[in-house]
């Protein structure tokens, strides 16, 4: 029997209230969002007029920058390599530090909740402070140069990596861990055997992402004197050497693009 041929029946529906709580709440949210943007616009001192007068200045710089300077290419490439190396060493150190900590910070495998909370707070503190800020402090402590950058990257990335790893661990279905524990095996064995194969690809993917991110971030670290190509960028800007500036920007673009593609290719291969 077709549905349409069944006897017609009226179904009760909830009554529609025009001035409901939900509608009032929606209106309130809209007002709050609008107010937020109005205040932000003023605080950020957005001034389109100044942009209009500034743009021609930039255009004249761009004209002066062509052709890019090639005389210092070997030095600049070395600086670029320095940036990649800083990111690699910093990220690797962060990963090694994050390895034991992420187990403490994952709710499902942490040995005790009294360790879980302090670990989470510690990681959030590391994450909250940008590698740029860390680098600023380390330049003062260990002097100018890429090592300060490495330390800055390592500390910030430690917090970020450990947190993302802990989340990857928390997303592992509990069944396999339970089954391994049910054989009477110790905790270390259970984690090494049943957890690692499940999370390892996600963990490597996260680490690659942070390396890629840190290559981009460490171009800026040079500005605070923490080595790498960023330092050359700042020098050129200070001395208004526009052809040199253009060369540096092109090198950064090429470097970041290559690393993005390489890292993406690697991450795809992990699945």
């Amino acid at each position, binding site marked *: 029997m077709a549905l349409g041929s069944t006897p017609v029946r009226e179904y009760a529906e909830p009554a529609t209230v025009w001035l409901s709580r939900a509608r009032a709440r929606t209106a309130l949210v809209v007002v709050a969002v609008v107010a937020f943007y109005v205040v932000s616009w003023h605080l950020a001192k957005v001034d389109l007029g100044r942009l209009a007068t500034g743009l021609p200045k930039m255009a004249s710089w761009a004209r002066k920058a062509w052709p890019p300077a090639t005389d210092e290419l070997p030095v600049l490439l070395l600086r670029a390599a320095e940036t990649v190396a800083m990111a690699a060493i910093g990220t690797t150190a962060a990963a090694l530090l994050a390895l034991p900590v992420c187990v403490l910070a994952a709710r499902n495998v942490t040995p005790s909740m009294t360790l879980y909370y302090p670990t989470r707070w510690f990681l959030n503190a590391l994450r909250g402070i940008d590698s740029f800020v860390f680098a600023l402090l380390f330049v003062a402590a260990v002097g100018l140069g890429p090592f300060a950058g490495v330390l800055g990257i390592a500390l910030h990335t430690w917090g970020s990596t450990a947190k993302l790893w802990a989340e990857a661990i928390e997303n592992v279905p509990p*069944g*396999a861990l*339970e*089954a*391994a524990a*049910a*054989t*009477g*095996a*110790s905790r*270390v*064995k*259970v984690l*090494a*055997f*049943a957890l690692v*194969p*499940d999370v390892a*690809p996600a963990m490597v993917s996260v680490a690659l992402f942070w390396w890629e991110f840190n290559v981009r971030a460490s171009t800026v670290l040079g500005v605070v004197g923490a080595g790498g190509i960023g330092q050359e960028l700042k020098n050129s800007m200070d001395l208004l050497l526009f052809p040199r500036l253009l060369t540096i920007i092109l090198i950064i673009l090429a470097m970041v693009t290559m690393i993005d593609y390489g890292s993406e290719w690697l991450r795809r291969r992990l699945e």
Partner: protein
Amino acid sequence: MNSRGHPAGPAPLVRVDAVTKTYPAGVRALSGVSFAVEPGEFVVLLGPSGAGKTTLFRCLTGLTRPDSGSVEIHGRDICRLGSRDLRSARREVAMIFQQFNLIRRLTASQNVLAGRLAVLPTWRVLARSFARDDRQMALRCLDTVGLLDKAYTRADQLSGGQQQRVAIARALAQEATVVLADEPVASLDPESAATVLDTLRSVAARGVAVIASLHQVGLATDYADRIIALRDGRLLEDAPRGAFDARALEQIYERSDARAVEAAGG
């Protein structure tokens, strides 16, 4: 009787004695449940959802401590063991789960090796490099459940029935004398379910005490040596397969289902 050389004397392998468990919310999950299982027996635990089957399994593995009564495995009361002794007692007991619980990215034979985790040296587990004897044993266990040809296939590439048989092979590799299977065929199609239950029967035939919980009365009467029926936390019946009145049991099921529908306000 069994392959590990434990005396098959008067003491049964598993003895559950007057086990009572009430959860904090006041729900009485088990009340005064007693039974014993001998080596080589295939016992099926029947009962509708909420009958107390899961609580009983948790008591058998020491995951839940009963309020009173005792659960003895090889004469050791696992309700009174410290965590270290409990871990060693668990080696005797292998678990089979409804959702198979294999390590998805590892091969079938590596998953079978997981059954040997407790006895493998830690460095071998960390390096994931296993001695030839252990590897051979894993293959032997897979051969026993009829999956030798899938030894190097990743667990997540296997069908549900195959995954459950790998889980059984894992229990064999553990050299457990007791196998507990909580709803082992609830997620499987009828054909795979039959294969898995056949495999469990053959495990019991090797002298292992197998306790499996099932929903379907038909499967229980087809495969079990003995059927234990639970309802509302009480042991309703404990009888050999032949002496079991399937019709009466089905009525119990239907009645309790009808009650559940009523309770849900249907």
